[in-house]
């Protein structure tokens, strides 16, 4: 049969990867789109960690942000709207060697994909998930998203959105087996990079919600926030996002926040005065489904054959 090969070959000579090794085609987002910054951050982390490009898989759904895989020079899966997480889990299930980055939008993850979101958090597989939250449906040209603020005028709600916006952080911190929740903003590359790096280093599902500017359709939503960093509250901790002089300078408001405490994380997420950024929650001890799904990976063809014959014999007469 086609392309069959039974054994693995590994590439012996050591390689050094530059940023270029992760840079795919020219990214085609609108000028000023927050997605560019996230792409750069991920490419930088890949280089820092010297991830072999062939071992990286960028998985996405459909949306502006879900174009992400096309702009990486790695493997990629640009699938269906709302379904990146099941695909990513399937990829990871039997390939512990692959490094999975999931790009998903607020519509993709929190609307059509919400059912998978809950369950992917519960599976807690070892991957990094980036929620590009621009509070709008970008690709389909300006419809209300579940995270659009009340009063947000879009093509489907020209007189303003009516329902209170879904808060991804508070939701996720209620999901069973949640193990890492961070929040960043696209316009602060230092913070973004630092949090994504933490999420990536986390063993389990590292979920980062990124407040992402969409100048084309929802520019006003984060405009104030961008201008006044004092509306943000930086959460730092030695076991979370460690404080650095740079971060210290960038954020007028900060707070020590121990990310190992789920109750405190929920309180931090529910903060109505300032928007928390940083690592809200981290529990590396949560079970990861990988430990279950990897079972039997190394079974040899001979052993399989023996077991199948034994199975057949169980039904023999």
């Amino acid at each position, binding site marked *: 049969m086609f392309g*069959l090969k039974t054994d693995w070959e590994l590439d012996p000579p050591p390689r050094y990867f530059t940023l270029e090794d992760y840079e795919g085609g020219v990214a085609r987002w609108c000028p000023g789109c927050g997605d560019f910054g996230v792409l750069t951050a991920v490419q930088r982390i890949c280089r820092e960690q010297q991830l072999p490009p062939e071992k990286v898989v960028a998985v996405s759904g459909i949306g502006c942000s879900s174009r992400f895989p096309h702009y990486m020079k*790695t493997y990629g899966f*640009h699938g269906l709207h709302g379904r990146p997480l099941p695909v990513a889990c*399937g990829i990871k299930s*039997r390939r512990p060697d692959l490094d999975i980055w999931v790009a998903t939008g607020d519509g993709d993850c929190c609307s059509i994909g919400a059912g998978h979101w809950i369950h992917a958090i519960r599976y807690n597989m070892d991957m990094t998930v980036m929620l590009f939250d621009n509070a709008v449906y970008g690709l389909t040209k300006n419809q209300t998203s579940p995270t659009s603020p009340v009063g947000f005028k879009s093509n489907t709600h020209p007189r303003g959105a009516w329902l209170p916006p879904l808060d991804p952080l508070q939701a996720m911190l209620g999901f069973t087996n949640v193990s890492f929740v961070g929040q960043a903003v696209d316009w602060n590359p230092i913070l973004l990079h630092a949090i994504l790096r933490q999420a990536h280093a986390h063993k389990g599902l590292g979920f980062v919600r990124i407040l992402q500017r969409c100048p084309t359709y929802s520019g006003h939503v984060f405009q104030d926030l961008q201008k006044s960093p004092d509306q943000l509250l930086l959460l730092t901790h030695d076991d979370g996002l460690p404080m650095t002089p740079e971060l210290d300078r960038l954020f007028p408001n900060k707070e020590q926040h121990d990310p190992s405490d789920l109750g405190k994380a929920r309180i931090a997420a529910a903060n109505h005065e300032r928007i928390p950024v940083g690592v809200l929650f981290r529990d590396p001890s949560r079970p990861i489904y990988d430990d279950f799904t990897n079972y039997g990976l190394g079974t040899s063809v001979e052993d*399989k054959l023996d077991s*199948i014959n034994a199975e057949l014999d169980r039904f023999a007469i």
Partner: protein
Amino acid sequence: MSTHVAEAAGTGSGSRTTVPQHIIEIVSDSGEGAQKAGQAFGAVCAKSGRGVWTVEIIPAEIKPPARSQAGASGIRIRVGSRTVTNMGDEADLVVAFNEQVLYGRITQHAFRKGTNILLENRWATDDSPEIRELYANALQEFREKGFVVHELPLEQECLKHTSNPRVGKNMFVLGMLCSIYGFEVERALEEAAFLFRKKGEKVVALNHELIRAGYAYASDHIPIQFFVPARPNPGKSIVVNGNQAVGLGIMAAGIDVVAMYPITPATSVSHYLGEAFHRVGGLLHQAEDEIAAIGFAIGASYAGKTACTVTSGPGLALKTEFLGLAVMGELPLVIVDVQRGGPSTGLPTKVEQGDLLASIWGQPGDSPKVVIAPATIEECFHFVITARKLAEAFRTPVIVLTDANLATGVQPIPRPNPQEEWLAPPIDQAPWDKKVLAYDWDVESGASPRPIPGQPGGEYVLTGLSHTKDAHVAYDPDSNRVGMEMRSRKLAALQKALKPPKVFGDESGGDLLLVGWGSTQGAIEEGVERARGEGQSVSAVHLRFMSPLEPGLEEIFRRFKKVVAIGIHYSDPEDSPIDKPNRRRSQLAILLRDQTLVDVDSWTRVEGQPLSPGTIYDAIQDHLGRLARKES
């Protein structure tokens, strides 16, 4: 004791009637162990070299009330001196634990005039006058219907051996059946020893006692004795149902990941895999829904692992969008659809073949994929292996359509001989030759090599958007057209590799040709055989490849005066207000008419039941009659 029995069996006590095949049912309230006894008896028959088909009789509720018509629970065992391919027509002999459940079977047309019914008679003396009356009325009604009722003091006899006859009487019945059909009682004892091996010696001993008692009772008191001769040398066999065969096929096909969401009647595939899959290092993933299940399987396939998802109609519906992505992204994937009654939730536990067109044409846009349908339990095993092979060779999803009839039917089939090559993983981690594009289509076959994550140099983005050979999104006219051509070409190439189906009956033609697919083969061919035995000019063709269709159909069809598509899916009856222009034909007929332009008629049943040889025989008479009238 009724004298009807002796008359019906036409033998005096002790003399055995030899029959080529017999159909036995044990019918009871649920939880009375009828199925266990029947399976054990089936095993006795199979191990003694008989052809066997057993199928469970399942009530609609999980725990229906006792003595209710809807609660009929039990088992049918068809035993024959040839390979048995279907559950047959009306039963020849029935053991019933109460009279009410028999009504449920009568609605299903399970009995005929002359069917022997061995009926528990404790209800005749029940405390409740109501029950006594119901029993008496039923007895009279059954006899009026021409059933040969033989009253049995079942629990009373069992009480001699156990204080809880409700639990023990099934083994008593097993013993009885061994006597009636002339099997040595030791065969039954062996089965019981195995069945109860984990329950301790005491339990085994009690059940042995009950079996012996039943055997003795029947030998002494039941004047009907049959003999079904053994098959000539059936070879090494295993006894499985279709879903177990699929599960075994999944393992033998080297499938690494099965992602599913529970749904009747497909779930038992995963029940079996839940037990066994880890032994071959496989992963069974129960996903949060059917969409996630196929998404997970697709992810695994993308990552170079052979993957499968198993479902039934409503689940297939939910997988529609991802199926389209698998076609567009050219991912190998095996989808097993164990068909049940539809549309919508329909008849969840019952058989239908209604997902044929939804499989072939159900996805928006042009979504060519392979659709195959095993016709036997044995093929349930082998078709999974074929499906994996085709999926990888052509880089395409393959749908395997089985149904509730195959899923729940149990029979001895030749023991498969798994091959190492079936198990070879598709994964390859060698550096990718960059000159080869991610979709480097062979224009003859539409096939192309597939880069797998981990292969340096093979990096590409799988996308559901229109794309070029090198996997780049492209909205230009040519890229879209070429991609569609190449994906479609796979079916043309596969069709060229197929052989025309064999004609069962007369290859050279004749009056009537029946065309079937999937689980109906056994019944159709048995019906045809009977009609041919009576000198009628009727043949049958059975299809296994539904997309692409096997070649040569038109040539075959043209040799017959009339061609009729047979199936367990809907077609309009031919009576008012239906007429030719507005008649909706069966899904199979639609396929065949488009392909051959022959005026293929359709004859179908949607009653939640497998087709039986008798109804096929009747259909043949009907069609031949019409043909004769038309010609005269």
